[in-house]
């Protein structure tokens, strides 16, 4: 069974051609940043908010093009591991607070990304203009839908007022509507009051908008119709530049959203200034107005299925102050020509969605609809919730380890391990002689198991060997050896009592030693678990190593040491108590008689 375990781990190693453990940054060189959330009274931030922050930071780090970086949660902290050195930019980026803002769209353009053409192809056919035609239809989905948008079937109810969205392809999936969508939907639930007043009007407006949209499509089509030309060539074609800060316009023109590194993830956009931004997936770029409403104005957000339908929507509630601003913003947007009838939701510097406003939304309640599925609706709701309570972080530690220092630490740890192991082996052999060989072999088996486990965990579970792990492993040598010592001493006790042969003693002693070993290992394991879950930084790694070796210890003692000793007990060398066996008469001394008496001690 033990053999099977070793073979399984070893086999995995061979199959994956992975023979060395993955090293942590303190050994391989790199930067580790620990971010601690700053909250009132040091309370723990809600789990979901923290998770969201982890996602945002991961997006940022990935956005900078660093490969192999890891972002992970550790208790309330977020730990970012960036291999290699000289990533100061990335380090600066990770600690800023991600904030959410609502900004009216002033201009929009599709990204011409040659490499994206195949998939993200709203353009070549020039179809966007066509899609702007619907006046009331249900089939407004742009013909050339970007295939990555999950919701190619346009939600019927929004389509009536979203022609403007279709040219850009992006808003197709989300229209920010008045409490209920403007028209034609079966969804007359909830919020009836607001909606009844607006229904008819919206119908009308919808029609009007369609026309507006028709008027502008030429403009829209221009940028999108020339996929191969760089955006700078005809920068402002079709863009109504009135009211746009020239500097921002220039930024907008230069902005190339096709490259993830340029998308501005993590940029701290000043809410008081206009801002040029990219859509999260890089498919569109926008000029956005100053932020009239910000994330902290949000009270709550939630995803749910609209009553009576299977359609996923995102509900958004504003706090009282935000509600007023929100009403003003939506009114302004609603009364503007497309594309300025959209309000972009900007999170952490990038546009996560830019729905069309289908009517002024007073009362602080809004609903975003349009082709969501459960995942995308929940995702958006989470993002909005995060925006309501953005987490500030402290960079509580930044640890950059150069590759040479890492190497030194690794070497030091390994040398210490070898010396430690050597000393233990030496001691076992001197003290236990023949039995010492059992101890040494057991240690060898434990070492092999540990090594393969570390390698396999490294390649399959992202386990990275770091300095605390190595120390934990070295320290655990003692614990592993102790199990043998407990067992050996028990055997000798049994032998001393003189009533048993070695073979019988091995079995009786085992029963007693087993209990002691299990209880003692349980204590170590409890310690490891407590440390692991309550620890910060390297402590968790140390605890993990301790827990791992405790388990391996049990495996080795049960499956190797015990059977091996039972086997040896059949050999004459041990059974007859050869002087070198560690079970010799001298060792057992004059204890053959029952009722052991001892010489009184001079204390």
């Amino acid at each position, binding site marked *: 069974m033990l053999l099977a375990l070793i073979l399984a781990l070893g086999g995995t190693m061979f199959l994956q051609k992975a023979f060395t453990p993955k090293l942590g940054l303190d050994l391989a060189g790199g930067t580790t940043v620990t971010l601690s959330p700053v909250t009132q009274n040091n309370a723990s931030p809600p789990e979901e908010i923290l998770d969201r922050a982890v996602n945002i930071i991961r997006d940022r780090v990935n956005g900078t093009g660093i490969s192999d970086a890891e972002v992970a949660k550790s208790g309330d902290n977020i730990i970012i591991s960036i291999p290699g050195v000289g990533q100061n930019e990335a380090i600066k980026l990770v600690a800023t607070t991600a904030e959410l803002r609502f900004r009216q769209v002033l201009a929009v353009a599709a990204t011409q990304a040659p490499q994206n053409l195949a998939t993200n192809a709203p353009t070549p056919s020039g179809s966007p203009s066509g899609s702007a035609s619907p006046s009331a239809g249900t089939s407004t989905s742009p013909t050339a839908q970007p295939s990555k948008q999950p919701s190619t079937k346009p939600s019927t109810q929004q389509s009536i007022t979203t022609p403007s969205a279709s040219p850009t392809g992006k808003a197709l999936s989300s229209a920010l509507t008045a409490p209920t969508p403007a028209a034609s939907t079966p969804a007359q639930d909830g919020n009836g009051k607001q909606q009844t007043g607006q229904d008819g009007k919206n119908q009308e407006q919808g029609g009007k908008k369609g026309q507006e949209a028709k008027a502008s499509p030429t403009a829209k089509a221009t940028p999108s119709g020339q996929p191969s030309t760089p955006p700078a060539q005809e920068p402002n074609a079709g863009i109504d530049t009135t009211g746009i800060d020239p500097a921002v316009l220039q930024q907008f023109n230069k902005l190339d959203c096709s490259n993830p590194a340029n998308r501005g993830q993590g940029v701290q956009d000043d809410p008081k200034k206009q801002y040029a931004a990219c859509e999260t997936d890089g498919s569109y770029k926008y000029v956005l107005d100053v932020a009239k409403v910000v994330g902290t104005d949000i009270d709550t957000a939630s995803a749910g299925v609209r009553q009576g339908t299977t359609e996923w929507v995102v509900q958004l509630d504003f706090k009282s102050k935000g509600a007023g601003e929100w009403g003003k913003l939506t009114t302004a947007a609603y009364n503007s020509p497309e594309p300025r009838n959209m309000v972009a939701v900007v999170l952490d510097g990038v546009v996560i969605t830019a729905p069309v406003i289908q009517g002024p939304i007073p009362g602080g309640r809004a609903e975003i609809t349009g082709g969501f599925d459960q995942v995308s609706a929940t995702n958006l709701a989470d993002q909005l919730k995060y925006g309501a309570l953005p987490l500030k972080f402290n960079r509580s530690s930044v640890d*950059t380890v150069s590759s040479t220092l890492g190497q030194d630490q690794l070497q030091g740890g390994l040398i*210490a*391990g070898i010396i430690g192991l050597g000393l233990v082996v030496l*001691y076992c052999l001197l003290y236990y002689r023949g039995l010492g060989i059992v101890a040494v072999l057991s240690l060898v088996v434990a070492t092999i198991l540990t090594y393969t486990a570390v390698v396999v965990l490294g390649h399959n579970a992202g386990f990275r060997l770091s300095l605390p792990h190595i120390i934990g492993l*070295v320290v655990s040598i003692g614990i592993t050896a102790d199990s043998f010592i407990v067992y050996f001493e028990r055997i000798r006790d049994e032998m001393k009592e003189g009533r048993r042969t070695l073979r019988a003693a091995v079995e009786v002693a085992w029963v007693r030693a087993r209990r002691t070993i299990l209880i003692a290992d349980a204590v170590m394991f409890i310690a490891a678990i407590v440390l692991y879950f309550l620890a910060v930084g390297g*402590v968790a790694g140390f605890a993990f190593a301790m827990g791992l070796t405790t388990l391996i210890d049990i495996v080795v003692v049960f499956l190797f040491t015990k059977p091996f000793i039972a086997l040896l007990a059949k050999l004459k060398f041990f059974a007859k108590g050869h002087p070198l066996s560690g079970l010799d008469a001298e060792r057992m001394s004059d204890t053959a008689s029952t009722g052991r008496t001892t010489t009184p001690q001079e204390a």
Partner: protein
Amino acid sequence: MGLARRLYRGEIDVDFVGKWRLWYSLSGLLLVVSLAGLLINGLNLGVEFKGGTIFSFKAGQTSVQEVRQSVLDEGVHQVIVQQAGTDGWRATTESLSEETRAEVQSAISKDFNVPVDQVSIQAIGPSWGGEVSQKAWIGLGVFMLAIILYLSMAFEPKMALAAIVALVHDLVITAGIYAWSGFEVTPATLLGFLTILGYSLYDAVVVFDMIKEVTAKLGHTSKQTYSMAANNALNHTLIRSLNTSLVAILPVAAILFIGTTVLGAGTLKDLSLSLFVGMIVGTYSSLCVATPLLVTLKEREPKYQAIARRLASTGGGGKGSKGSKSAAVAKG
């Protein structure tokens, strides 16, 4: 027979339990001295607890003064330079801004002819240490609770109590040694402290397991008091305790040696030092504190008091809970 031989043959019979007065006073004294040290000297907290920046690099021919000057030239106010190992250097400064950090890094790189990316930087915010120690306290509390529960179930509440008292004893004395010696306390040291908990208990558990086994036989007709039986058990496991402690301390000593001589200051040294000190204290306490304490608690139980009285009146059992030479002889 020499002591070594007696040890090897397991023929020792030290009256640990009977000398409880000695151990209690010794431990009491150590505790008082340790607490005094903590109050008077306090712990020498590392930069991790105060916030600051550490630059480490390797450079052959230079001196503390040169490194110091190089760092101070960049507008740093406080700097402590340590040599780490043969050619490693460690400069600890106050908390620095991002810009200053980069400046110091490039200054070191220029002055000592080290590639910029070979200058390691560790920057710790002022709140970090507080967080680490807060977590450590919580960890300590949860751990003790878990252990008390577990030991109460596996053994009995009095054993759990004795084990926990021994544990606190170890922690306080280890902290006292740190306070008096002025060794730097870093998060790695705390980690070591927490590990000692596991270790100290591990040892006590093995001893208690034996005591439980031996004392289970005690009854109306037994010739042993609880003290004698416990002492007997302790001596039984003495070899194991010593062997185990030695085997555990050997690798730690190896890390301490490597950490101090080759690498100089750092995680390896801090962790192994606290383990080293803690394990020695832990070995002492599991023999001389945990068991006598358990005996003191148990001898109060009517059942064991009765045995002690009976043996005292017949004169067969020596001096009751204090144990004695004759008690040792009498064990069966």
